[in-house]
C-alpha cells in the first residue's frame, strides 16, 4: 500500500463532501425556464406507489372478446415486463378473471418532466403484435381501420430475442439505429426455417417482405438473398429511443388479445400520505443518534466512521437517482428503504468491528501505527464475508425479480426458477438494488475510505494520543 500521508485525510473528506453534495442536490442549470439536469438529486427520485401514490389503470379486452384464464395470465405477465422495460419497477398488477380485467398500478410523480403517465399507459395497452408478411397488401376491417392482409411469414413468437443496435447502413457511409432480431431455431417449423423458406421464395422478385407492428408498417425491404442464419434486421427511420422501444416490445411479447383502457385514475399512497416525511424524520433522528453514539464510543475512529457513513448514505441515494452513468436509477419503495437500512447497518457494524479491534490491539501493547494497521487487516475478513453473503442475496433477488432481459435473470430463470414465469416484481428488485449498492458503498467508504482517514489522522502529532483511539495512556 502506498504511504498514507497527512494530506490524504483532507482529500478523502473533500471527495466524500463533493460526492454527497452532488448526489443530494443534483447538478442542474437554469436557462430561462428550462432546467437541464446533469446529475439527478434527491428531488428527482421516483418514489414508489407505497410512498407517493400513483396511477391506477384498468384494462379490459376490446370489444366483445372473452379472454380465458390462460390468456389473462399471459397478458398480465406481458404488462409486468413492459412496466419493467419502462423503468417502472414498482408496480402492482392484478387480474380479475370474472370480469376479464387487468388492474395496473404504478407510482406517480407530479412534475416529472420526462415521464408521461398517459403515454406510458398507452404503450402498456398496445397489443404489440409483430408480423412479417409477404407483400404490402392491406384491407379495411369492419371498423374502417386499415389492417395488413399479406400472408404471415413470422410473428413475434418466432423471435428468440431482439436488441437495438447502432450499425453502419448498407452503403457503409453512415450509421443508423436498427433492431436486430435473432429467430428461434429449434425444431422444423421454427422461425429460422420459416424465414429461410420465405426469403428463398421471394428472392429477386418485386414482392417485398413487410414488417408490421400491429397495424403500422415499419418497413418493407426487398429480399436480395436467402437468409438462413436465423438473423434479421429491422431498419427504418429509428432513433435511439424508438429502436429501443421496439426491441423492448418484441422482447416482452405480444398481448394475446387487443386491450383498451377501461378506467384511468390517480390513487393515494398505500402507506398513507406523508409517510415518507415520517421515515425521513426517523432516519434523521437515528442518524444523529448513531453519530453521537459512535463518537462517544470510539472517539477519533468513531468520528471518521460518521464521515464514512455520510458517504455511504450519499452512495445509496446516488444509486437510486442514477448518479452513476452505467447504472439505471430505480424506484424508491419501502423494501428499498429496508435495503438501505440494512446496508447502512452493515456499514455501522463494519466501523464498530474495526473500532473494537483497534482498542484490542492497543491493549496488547502495540504501537499506534501497528495497532491501526493490524486492526483494519483483521477486521476486514469478518467484514468481507458478511458483506459478500449480502451481495449473494442481493444478486439472487435482483436476478429472480428483475427485468427478464438482464444477465442474471437469464441464468436464474432458466435454471432455478424454470417453474415460474419470468416475472418482474419491482418491490423485491428494489430491495436487492439498494442492498447491493449499499454494500458496494460499504466497501468503498466503510472500509477503504475510513482506513485512509484514520491512518492519515494518526500521522498528526495532536492525534497521537492513544486515548483518542480507546487505548490506554502508556
Amino acid at each position: 500500500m502506498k504511504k498514507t500521508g497527512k494530506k490524504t485525510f483532507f482529500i478523502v473528506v473533500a471527495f466524500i463532501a463533493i460526492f454527497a453534495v452532488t448526489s443530494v442536490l443534483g447538478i442542474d442549470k437554469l436557462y430561462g425556464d428550462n432546467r437541464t439536469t446533469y446529475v439527478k438529486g434527491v428531488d428527482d427520485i421516483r418514489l414508489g406507489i407505497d410512498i407517493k401514490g400513483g396511477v391506477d389503470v384498468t384494462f379490459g379486452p376490446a370489444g366483445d372478446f372473452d379472454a380465458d384464464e390462460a390468456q389473462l395470465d399471459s397478458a398480465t405477465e406481458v404488462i409486468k415486463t413492459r412496466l419493467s422495460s419502462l423503468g417502472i419497477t414498482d408496480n402492482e398488477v392484478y387480474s380479475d378473471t370474472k370480469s376479464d380485467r387487468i388492474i395496473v398500478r404504478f407510482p406517480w410523480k407530479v412534475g416529472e418532466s420526462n415521464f408521461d403517465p398517459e403515454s406510458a399507459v398507452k404503450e402498456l395497452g398496445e397489443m404489440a403484435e409483430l408480423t412479417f408478411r409477404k407483400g404490402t397488401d392491406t384491407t379495411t376491417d369492419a371498423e374502417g381501420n386499415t389492417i395488413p392482409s399479406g400472408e404471415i411469414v413470422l410473428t413475434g413468437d418466432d423471435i428468440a430475442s431482439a436488441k437495438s443496435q447502432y450499425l453502419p447502413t448498407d452503403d457503409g457511409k453512415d450509421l443508423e439505429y436498427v433492431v436486430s432480431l435473432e429467430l428461434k431455431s429449434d425444431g422444423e417449423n421454427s422461425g429460422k426455417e420459416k424465414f429461410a423458406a420465405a426469403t428463398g421464395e421471394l428472392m429477386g422478385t418485386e414482392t417485398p417482405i413487410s414488417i408490421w407492428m400491429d397495424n403500422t408498417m415499419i418497413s418493407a425491404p426487398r429480399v436480395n438473398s436467402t437468409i438462413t442464419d436465423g438473423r434479421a434486421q429491422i431498419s427504418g427511420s429509428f432513433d435511439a429511443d424508438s429502436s429501443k422501444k421496439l426491441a423492448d416490445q418484441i422482447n416482452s411479447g405480444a398481448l394475446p388479445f387487443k386491450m383498451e383502457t377501461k378506467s384511468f385514475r390517480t390513487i393515494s399512497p398505500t402507506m398513507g400520505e406523508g409517510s415518507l416525511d415520517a421515515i425521513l424524520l426517523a432516519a434523521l433522528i437515528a442518524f444523529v443518534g448513531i453519530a453521537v453514539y459512535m463518537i462517544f464510543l470510539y472517539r477519533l475512529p468513531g468520528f471518521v466512521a460518521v464521515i464514512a457513513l455520510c458517504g455511504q448514505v450519499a452512495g445509496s441515494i446516488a444509486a437510486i437517482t442514477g448518479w452513476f452513468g452505467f447504472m439505471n436509477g430505480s424506484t424508491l419503495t419501502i423494501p428499498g428503504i429496508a435495503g438501505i437500512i440494512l446496508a447502512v447497518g452493515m456499514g455501522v457494524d463494519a466501523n464498530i468491528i474495526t473500532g473494537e479491534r483497534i482498542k484490542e490491539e492497543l491493549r496488547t501493547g502495540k504501537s499506534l501505527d501497528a495497532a491501526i494497521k493490524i486492526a483494519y487487516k483483521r477486521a476486514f475478513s469478518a467484514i468481507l464475508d458478511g458483506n459478500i453473503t449480502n451481495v449473494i442475496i442481493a444478486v439472487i433477488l435482483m436476478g429472480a425479480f428483475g427485468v427478464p432481459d438482464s444477465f442474471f435473470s437469464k441464468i436464474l430463470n432458466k435454471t432455478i426458477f424454470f417453474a415460474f414465469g419470468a416475472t418482474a416484481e419491482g418491490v423485491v428488485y428494489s430491495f436487492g438494488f439498494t442492498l447491493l449498492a449499499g454494500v458496494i458503498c460499504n466497501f468503498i467508504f466503510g472500509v477503504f475510505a475510513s482506513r485512509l482517514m484514520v491512518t492519515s489522522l494518526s500521522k498528526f502529532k495532536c492525534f497521537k494520543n492513544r486515548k483518542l483511539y480507546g487505548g490506554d495512556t502508556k
Partner: protein
Amino acid sequence: MSKKDTQKEVVLTPKKVYNFCSKKKLILGVVIGVLLVFIAGAIIRGIHLAIEFKGGTLITYTYQGEINTNDVASAVKDVVGSTVVVRTGESLDSGGKQVTISFTSDQGLTVDRQTELTTALREKFAENDLEIYDSNDVNPTSGREFLLKCLVAVVFAAIVVIIYIAIRFKNIGGWSAGVCSIFALCLDLLVAFTATVVCKFNIDSNIVAVFLTILGYSINNTIVIYDRIRENRKLMPKASLNELINVSCTQSLTRSIRTSITTIGTMLIVTIVVMVTGYDSLLSFSVPLMMGLISGTFSSLFVAPVTWSWWMNKRAAKGKTSK
C-alpha cells in the same frame, strides 16, 4: 498476514470468559417458547393475508367534497368487523374523486353485505354523496406465485450462503457451521413472523422486505462470530472447541451488543416516530423487523455457535466410539 506479525502475536484471552456452550437448555427453551407463542398467536389472532395473496374484492365509490380515509376504514370496520385498506384517488378521465376499499376474500363480502355496507357508508357520509363506481374481484394467483417465488429465491440464497460459508470457513468445518447459521436465521424469521401474527398485521409485501432484511442481518451477525472462531483456531490450536467458542463469543460480545443497539435503536425510533405521526401502516414493517433483529442478536451469539458445538461434539463422540 506476514510471518513477522504472527511471531510477536500475544494471545489475549478476555479476563472473564462467559460460558456460552452451557446454555443449551436456554436455547431449547427460547425456541419452544417462540413456537408456542406463534401457535397461540395463529390460533387466537389468525393469519391475515393481504388482498394480493388471498384474493378479494375492490369496491370503488365516487364522492364529493372531502373524505378522511381513516374515518371510512373505521366505518367499514363497524359493518364488516375487520380492518380494510382504504385509498382515495382521482379519476383522470372523468375528473371525479374516488375512494377504493379492499376486502380480502375471508371477510365474506357477499352481495347482501356489500349492499348493507353501501347503505351504511352513504348514511354516515351523507354530505359526500357516495355512489358505487366499480367492483372488482382480485385474483390471488399472481400474488401467490410471487410469494412462492420469494420462498424459492430465499431457499436458493440460503443454499448458496451455506456453500459460501463452507468454503470460507473450511478450517473450522464449514458445512456444519453454514447449516447452523441458517438454523439461527430460521428462528429469527419465525420471531418476526410471530410478531406479525400477534400484532394482527396483514401479511403483505412489507413482510417480504422484513424477511429479506433479517436474512441479511442474521447471517452477517453469525459470520462475524464464525470469523472470530476461525481466527482464534489459528492462535490457539490446542483449545477445545467449546473453549474456542466461549472465547470467541465473549470477544465478540461488545461488538454484537453495540451493533445491535444501533440497528434495534433505529427501528425503535422508526416505530416511535410512526406511532407519533400516525402512519400506522408502517408499523407492520418496523415492529416485526425490530423483533427479528433482537432475535438475531441472541441467535448469532447463542443459537448458531451452540448448536454448532453440539453438532461437532456429537460427531466427535461418534467418531471415537466407532474407532
